């Protein structure tokens, strides 16, 4: 396997459990028990109502395409061999939107439509980090 030279997430104390989850091929979100909103990215205190009464929930991994771009000029040397590649914001069925790549689709605008159903797939990049990506459901 060629050396992986894309940016690699450095988990932080509030996100360790998120990245442990993706390593097991599970997607975990935070949810607030006071305002009842699930949110991304993971942090202990709810960004909607600032409550500390929050939990982790196991997300289904299903969502839809909120928007996307097809990147032709790679913004980082790690993406040169991938270009053109698809970046996206995915709306999860639990509510939050997450950034991701869309994979398993040729990177042409006509292959992608806003609101198309997507499901999570996982790409292991290091022993510690597995990235959640999305593909047409």
């Amino acid at each position, binding site marked *: 396997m060629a050396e992986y030279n894309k940016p690699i997430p450095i988990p932080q104390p509030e996100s360790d459990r998120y990245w442990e989850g993706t390593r097991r091929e599970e997607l975990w979100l935070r949810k607030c028990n006071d305002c009842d909103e699930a949110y991304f990215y993971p942090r202990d205190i709810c960004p909607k109502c600032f409550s500390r009464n929050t939990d982790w929930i196991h997300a289904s991994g299903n969502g839809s395409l909120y928007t996307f771009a097809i990147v032709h*000029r790679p913004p980082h040397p790690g993406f040169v061999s991938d270009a053109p590649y698809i*970046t996206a914001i995915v709306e999860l069925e639990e509510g939050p939107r997450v*950034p991701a790549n869309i994979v398993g689709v040729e990177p042409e605008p006509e292959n992608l439509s806003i609101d198309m159903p997507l499901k999570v797939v996982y790409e292991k990049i290091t022993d510690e980090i597995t990235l959640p990506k999305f593909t047409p459901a």
Partner: protein
Amino acid sequence: MPVMSKLKDLSGAAEIVGVAESDQIGKLPDKSALQLHAEAAHNALEDAGIPMSEVDGYLTAGYSTYDVAEYLGIQPHFTDATIVGGASFVIHIAHAMAAIQAGYCEVALITHGQSGRSDRARAAANRGLPSQQYEAPFGILGPPVSYSMAARRYMHEYGEDRTRQALSEIAVSTRKWANMNPVAYMKDEPMTFEDYHNSRWISWPFHLFDCCLVTDAGAAIVITTPERAKSARKGGVKVVGVGEGHDHSMISQMEDLTLPFGRFTGPQALEMAGITHSDLDLTMIYDSFTYTVLVTLESLGFCKPGEGPDFVADQRTAPGGEFPLNTSGGGLSYTHPGMYGIFTVVEAIRQLRGEAGERQIDDCNLAMAHGTGGNLSSTGTVILARD
């Protein structure tokens, strides 16, 4: 929201007396970013007719103020390094005005210098920030990717063909202004609609010509009390309205990709100035991308959401058009070193003073300069008035 009655008291509390670019702008591999700060500061103080020894307030973004102030030889009693991307320098004007009114300082200097094209320094380290954990690993890195995703959402909501036409109108009209600006990077490069549509993809839906330039450039602004402005070389231009703020950092955290924070800062600045959109003679909007201009016109309230394509149709914003916009040639065609906001103010002051040469617009008395920073994250708006 702040209490408007208090803010209204600030209207006119300070005046801009000096603006300048660095000696050159464009491709400058033989100059450091700090030198660009220094040249711009020197030129702006000369424009103001105020010696460096009188500067007692200092503001910049992207560096700590003590690093640049030391380089310049300033020991300020008011210091502000607010950094919220390219909007910062527009926001600094409001901060300088508040500081002047509160008595922190009498002559504030705002500088910017950036070697976007020629910088020898390396990129910032990975500190585990949310953007570095959740966006960068997917190649969601840098403004073209994030802004193009926002533009694609706009296309979904308001129509792809309409949006594309608007983006092309903005690219072409902005280039026409640059063709009239002797220091514009694209001074001698005309652009047709065909050129726009034929330019290569950077991050679909963005063509190359939807994206700002990458240059080396510096600029500076000198701002002081109305009393001190009277003896400045060219007098002063009043700051009569301001607004600032932000609502997210990462593009994936932006609630509505078609409605940036100018929805607050624009109306607030206009209300503080006691004017409406139609009173403005010139509008300078940070054009990091063609799309930034389109959604910013809507968010500021020049037209309703989704009506931007009609607003910019038929080269309405080009030289000779009804709505002069980004008359310097903008970040798209004049200069864009990475953070461009300060240059919207430099051009607005020149137009208000009647110094804009071939591109001078008639009877320019009231201008808006509006900066955007980050991933459509922050905005700063100022309204400037000639005496």
